[in-house]
């Protein structure tokens, strides 16, 4: 239990610290890639990915630093990509909005809303076809469910009884538009419950709970040969894209932020460790290691060369 919770905290802290590292350096103007920070949602990526097998597949959106880090735990290639360097996973061609790590099962993310949902359908179809037993999880925002392709994909997955987790990361906002302004219905889960799939929902910020809910869902998937739809609510701490808070803009209230902040997922997870009897020193030691790792990654990324100009033309065709 303690081990597990430390494991979870490691991933969560890595994500939070990485995002803050980006914020620290962004103004230097060297990471020329739009970043959609995940701060406030760490428990979802970490909880879900913890519940998955390492060999399982994952897809995400432009807001996928969290799933990348939870899947890979590495930051050298990550920062290299954000700095646009030859040592990034796509030699800088991808940037923050298109990170991937196929060998860790992260098969890609996309900056066009909803577009990776059907890819996940195909990936899970492929697992069923090849009988690998692997799950696929696709992370998407509450904006994606406005797009027709979500509904087509949901239907396909249910029809084909695919081993697929739909992970709705609901921060109640698509850029600055609340779900209420966008939805002609009250509850997405009430709708999805009418499909042939398992459905659950939560607004917890407890990572372990996210993990358990996901494990239960995966169990149902295997047992009933059905996909699952998990609706997780969270709060996006910063502006849609960029490094700042934007409470001054007036489209959302800072009060709500403070409510969520009071149960900040990373803080909560850290408090748990202390509760479990882990010492403050032990935790700090780990945190310092992460800080050291991040400093190193940023240093390496800055020092790395830009891709050779001819790289513009590679990777277009196989």
């Amino acid at each position, binding site marked *: 239990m303690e081990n597990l919770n430390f494991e979870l905290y490691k991933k969560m802290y890595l994500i939070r610290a990485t995002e803050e590292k980006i914020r620290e350096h962004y103004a230097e103007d060297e990471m020329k890639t739009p970043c959609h920070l995940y701060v406030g949602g760490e428990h979802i990526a970490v909880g879900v990915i913890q519940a998955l097998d390492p060999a399982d597949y994952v897809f995400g959106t432009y807001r996928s630093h969290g799933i990348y880090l939870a899947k890979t735990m590495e930051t050298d290639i990550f920062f290299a990509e954000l700095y646009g360097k030859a040592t990034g996973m796509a030699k800088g061609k991808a940037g923050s909005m298109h990170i*991937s790590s196929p060998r860790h099962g992260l098969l890609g993310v996309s900056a066009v809303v909803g577009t990776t949902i*059907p*890819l996940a359908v195909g990936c899970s179809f492929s697992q069923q076809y090849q009988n690998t037993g692997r799950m696929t999880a696709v992370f998407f925002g509450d904006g994606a469910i406005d797009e027709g392709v979500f509904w087509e*994909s949901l239907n396909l997955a249910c029809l084909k009884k695919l081993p697929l987790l739909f992970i709705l990361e609901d921060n109640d906002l698509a850029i600055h538009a609340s779900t209420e302004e966008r939805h002609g219905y009250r509850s997405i889960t009430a709708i999805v419950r009418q499909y042939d799939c398992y459905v659950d929902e939560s607004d917890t910020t407890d990572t372990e709970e996210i993990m358990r809910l996901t494990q239960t869902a995966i169990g149902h998937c295997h047992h009933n040969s059905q996909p699952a739809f998990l609706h997780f609510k969270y709060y996006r701490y910063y502006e849609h894209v960029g490094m700042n808070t934007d409470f001054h803009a007036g489209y959302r209230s800072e009060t709500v932020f403070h409510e969520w902040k009071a149960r900040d997922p990373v803080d909560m997870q850290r408090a748990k460790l202390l509760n479990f009897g882990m010492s403050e020193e032990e935790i700090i030691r780990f945190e310092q290691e992460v800080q050291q790792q991040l400093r190193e990654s940023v240093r390496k990324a800055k020092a790395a060369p830009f891709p050779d100009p001819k790289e513009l033309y590679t990777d277009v065709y196989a």
Partner: protein
Amino acid sequence: MSTRLITYREAITEAIREEMERDERVFVYGLDVADFKRTFGSGKGLLEQFGPKRYFSTPLSEDALMGMGVGAAITGLRPVNVHIRVDFLLLTMNQLTNIVSCWRYTTGGALCVPLTIRAVTGRGWGQGMQHSKTMQSIFAHIPGLKVIAPSTAADVKGLLKSAIRDDNPVLVVEQRWLYDTPGEVPSDPDYLEPIGAPRRIREGSDITVVGISWMVVEAVKAAEILVQRGVQVEVIDPRTISPLDYTMIYASVKKTGYCIVADYDWLTCGFSAEVAARVQEHCFRELKSPVTRVGFAETPCPTTRPLENRFYSNAVNIIRTIEQKLGLLETDLRGEEFYSYENKFKGPF
């Protein structure tokens, strides 16, 4: 190399059957592929042989189905996604352009997308504006996609097989009237045609006609008529729309000094424009007159036959254009039989 005379339709079926036999990872899916009509018969016997796991109909969800193909392709399968009309591919443009064409680029070459997309262009009997488009140029405009439009039974077999074996996404545009055209097709199950290379359909020294898809048939008809007047028309079928090796086309135009592009599509920003732009660049000194283009009228395709007939270009337009270019008097075409919905191409190439 032993060959048999089979139709374009049968050549498609053979290509898919052979590739499915050869490679368990190949599967075919799309709206209505497994119904009793089997996509104009082109999927005949495949469900029976390979079963519903590898050959299945789907819901009417083109957008998601294209994405599904990508997800399957990047995890080891080789999907063949079938569309009974090119027009329905418009629903997949977001996936095609924002995902399919650049997933390899975006992953720094770590993943590839061996996805084959078949789409049929309708014609005649009032198909109308929503069931007759080709739009090859729209797809060819997107780097990362390969687009082919075979016009003969042998080519559709060899190219479709190459497409399925290709590690890149390949879109195959199949004109519906071609389905009934027979041709000699090699029996060798490893017979392939290279994507990217044109085929010289007919040799000639007086003028080059680059014909695309059904217009190859019309161009050959035009050539057959004009040869009786001593005019030697060279007909080249690019077969691939993009990416295409133009060497053969340039060589031909350098030889003949004249070039007509007969596209089976609208002209504005069409493939015909690309060919014209390239030919004028590479054969500038040799060209004795500008490259001329013939294609669809710049209108939606009308339903009623008399207008529909005018919407399309045909052998007569090609003949008249050649005559103008070469300064010939108009050939008397009375007594010639041309292709129509009822009188489709019959003989082998």
